[in-house]
């Protein structure tokens, strides 16, 4: 809006005014000088001329008397030459020209010019005008011895404007130097004062004619005068207000950057890996979780810029890769689960890719990937399935026995009474086993909910241990396991939950019996030291590998060892035992060697 030409337009206008002003002033000055010099010249000239006229009259009179007028013609011609006269003449008393610079006029009667008459003593003059010329005819009588012998005439051009101008021009350089200097200084001062003002003025004019103020772009000026500095300060203030500046705008900007930061922060705080890829499949954003999941081999560098499919390490013909590359699926959400091994650890990742659809565009401009490490979930699922498997087995086995015996009893005739009793006993035993398992299940369930609580009362520990042993003994006898039991001579009384403590100890001893091969050994050693009860359960069973040792107390955990697998079990026994002992304020620890045996030690404080 404010171009270079416009920038200069206003100064030019000002300069024109300025020059006009200067011209008028200088013209006025010049005219005054001419008028003054004309007046002064006329006065000087007149005085000088009158004096010359006097002398010339005297000379003419003498020449007239001496030579009888023969030299008069030469004389007037000399006068005319000396004074640059228009003409010079001598007139006889009779009124004829005796001599005249215009020779033809000699002898002719004098012509009387018309005009204004002026008189200085004996000298008089007629001021007359012919055309543009103004001249005066001076006349002085030639007197000798009291009589007039003639009249001397001199026609002289009056001092006019032109000669005054010439005189002025002679002195002009000196006369105009002063005002000229003022004009120059004025110009400099003017440019310093006016130019910034003009630049500001131009912008204000634009603002005055702009349709809306929004169209007006006020800008700073490059001058350093106080007014320019003030203007610039104002403009900068307004720019701050409007650009970054208005409260609304500033607030919006702050919010936007806050939002962007917040979004990044939120994405980086997600536990799931998140990546954004462009239409070419290159990663443009990856959050920290994803870097952590995928970039365990740090040599591969940052994810940004890499192709997502490459970094997922999908084998060329894997179904997951085929799905991700299938153009038909580019418009849809694709979910795939992949497994890989990273540093010897099997990992399962769940990948979800969804297209980013810009409004009005059919083809996706890129994808959002979310990557979740579901290893733990899958492991938990596997454990739960294992548990379900074992649980159904644990439930079905006693149920199968009960049904088989009951049906046999009801449908077969002629069974000896002894046999009948035996069958009923078996049914009873199996029912007990079933209810114990269900108790375990419920205990673990309430333990999971944190609702497992103890009902403490004084317990006769000796009786408790006898009961525990009696429950496990038949199983050991069946496997011909030699059982060594060392109990203290006298048990102190102990406030405890009898049922739960029994369950825990039965689980420990039952496990020892279950996982010890036929003919093995199981030991139970109970000691009381420093008001603390120590229970050691030792076996010569299959043992637990070092890998699995930390997990034996996890619920539903069952060893992968085939020797363990062939035994039925819920994976709840040890979990429950540990929790019960923990609730009693004690702890349960395990030492084991694969193929040699295991030793579980429970420590419970007596108070």
């Amino acid at each position, binding site marked *: 809006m404010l171009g270079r030409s416009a920038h200069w337009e206003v100064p030019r206008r000002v300069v024109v005014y300025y020059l006009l002003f200067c011209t008028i002033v200088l013209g006025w000055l010049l005219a005054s000088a001419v008028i003054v010099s004309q007046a002064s010249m006329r006065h000087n000239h007149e005085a000088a001329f009158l004096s010359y006229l006097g002398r010339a009259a005297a000379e003419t009179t003498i020449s007239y008397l001496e030579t009888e007028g023969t030299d008069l013609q030469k004389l007037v011609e000399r006068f005319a030459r000396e004074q640059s006269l228009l003409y010079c003449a001598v007139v006889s008393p009779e009124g004829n020209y005796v001599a005249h610079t215009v020779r033809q006029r000699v002898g002719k009667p004098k012509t009387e010019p018309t005009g204004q008459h002026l008189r200085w003593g004996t000298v008089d003059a007629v001021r007359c005008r012919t055309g543009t010329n103004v001249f005066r005819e001076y006349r002085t009588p030639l007197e000798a011895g009291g009589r007039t012998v003639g009249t001397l005439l001199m026609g002289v051009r009056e001092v006019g404007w032109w000669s005054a101008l010439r005189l002025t021009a002679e002195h002009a350089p000196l006369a105009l130097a002063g005002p000229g200097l003022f004009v120059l200084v004025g110009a400099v001062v003017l440019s310093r004062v006016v130019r910034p003002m003009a630049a500001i003025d131009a912008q204000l004019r634009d603002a005055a004619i702009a349709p809306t103020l929004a169209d007006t772009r006020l800008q700073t000026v490059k001058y350093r005068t106080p007014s320019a500095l003030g203007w610039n300060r104002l403009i900068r203030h307004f720019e701050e207000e409007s650009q970054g500046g208005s409260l609304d705008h500033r607030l919006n900007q702050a919010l936007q950057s806050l939002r962007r930061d917040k979004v990044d922060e939120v994405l980086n705080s997600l536990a799931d890996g998140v990546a954004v890829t462009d239409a070419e499949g290159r990663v443009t954003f990856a959050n920290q979780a994803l870097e952590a999941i995928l970039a365990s081999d740090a040599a591969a560098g940052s994810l940004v810029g890499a192709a997502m499919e490459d970094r997922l390490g999908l084998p060329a013909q894997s179904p997951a890769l085929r799905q991700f590359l299938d153009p038909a699926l580019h418009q849809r959400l694709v979910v795939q689960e992949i497994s890989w091994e990273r540093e010897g650890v099997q990992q399962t990742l769940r990948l979800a890719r969804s297209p980013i659809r810009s409004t009005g565009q059919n083809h996706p401009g890129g994808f959002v990937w979310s990557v979740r490490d579901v290893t733990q979930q899958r492991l938990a699922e596997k454990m739960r399935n294992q548990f379900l498997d074992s649980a*159904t087995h644990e439930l*079905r*086995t006693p149920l*199968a*026995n*009960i*049904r088989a*015996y009951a049906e046999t009893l009801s449908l077969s005739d002629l069974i000896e009474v002894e046999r009948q009793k035996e069958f009923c006993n*078996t049914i009873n*035993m199996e029912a007990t086993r079933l209810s114990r398992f269900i108790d375990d299940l419920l205990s673990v369930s309430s333990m999971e909910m944190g609702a497992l609580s103890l009902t403490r009362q004084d317990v006769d520990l000796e009786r408790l241990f006898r009961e525990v042993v009696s429950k496990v003994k038949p199983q050991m006898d069946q496997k011909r396991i030699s059982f060594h039991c060392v109990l203290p001579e006298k048990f102190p009384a102990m406030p405890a939950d009898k049922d739960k403590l029994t369950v825990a100890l039965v689980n420990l001893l039952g496990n020892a019996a279950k996982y010890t091969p036929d003919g093995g050994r199981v030991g139970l050693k109970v000691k009381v030291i420093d008001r603390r009860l120590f229970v050691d359960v030792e076996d010569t069973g299959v043992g637990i590998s070092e890998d699995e040792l930390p997990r034996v107390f996890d619920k539903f955990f069952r060893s992968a060892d085939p020797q363990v697998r062939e035994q039925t079990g819920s994976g709840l026994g040890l979990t429950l035992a540990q929790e019960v002992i923990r609730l009693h304020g004690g702890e349960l620890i395990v030492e084991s060697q694969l193929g040699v045996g295991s030793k579980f030690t429970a420590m419970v404080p007596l108070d």
Partner: protein
Amino acid sequence: MNEAPGNILIAEDNAALASVMRFNLERAGFRVTVARSGREAWEQVCSRSFDLILTDEQMPEMGGREFCKQLRSRTESCQIPVIMLTAKALEIDTEQLREELGIETVFVKPFSPREVIRAVQNRLAATC
């Protein structure tokens, strides 16, 4: 009761169940041998001939499936009809068991002993 005598092998680690099945089968007139594991059952199969085998699926040392595989790999025993008893219901694919292991009938615990005996009788009657 005595018209279809046959040698039957029960492979079952659950002693109580094996015992009641033996009781019922013997009452039906069969001669019954009980093995406590797949390995024991395999040893029995190698030493004697049986007309039918009742086997549990989950057993120590050698499971029911493994036992059947061995059974089918041996010419003398590949034709013996097998009835399987199992505590798993969800994972059992009877079609697969029939095709791969020649197991004709699968009973899921808890089963009715009477139905098992009827199945044994029917199977043996068909062979004769």
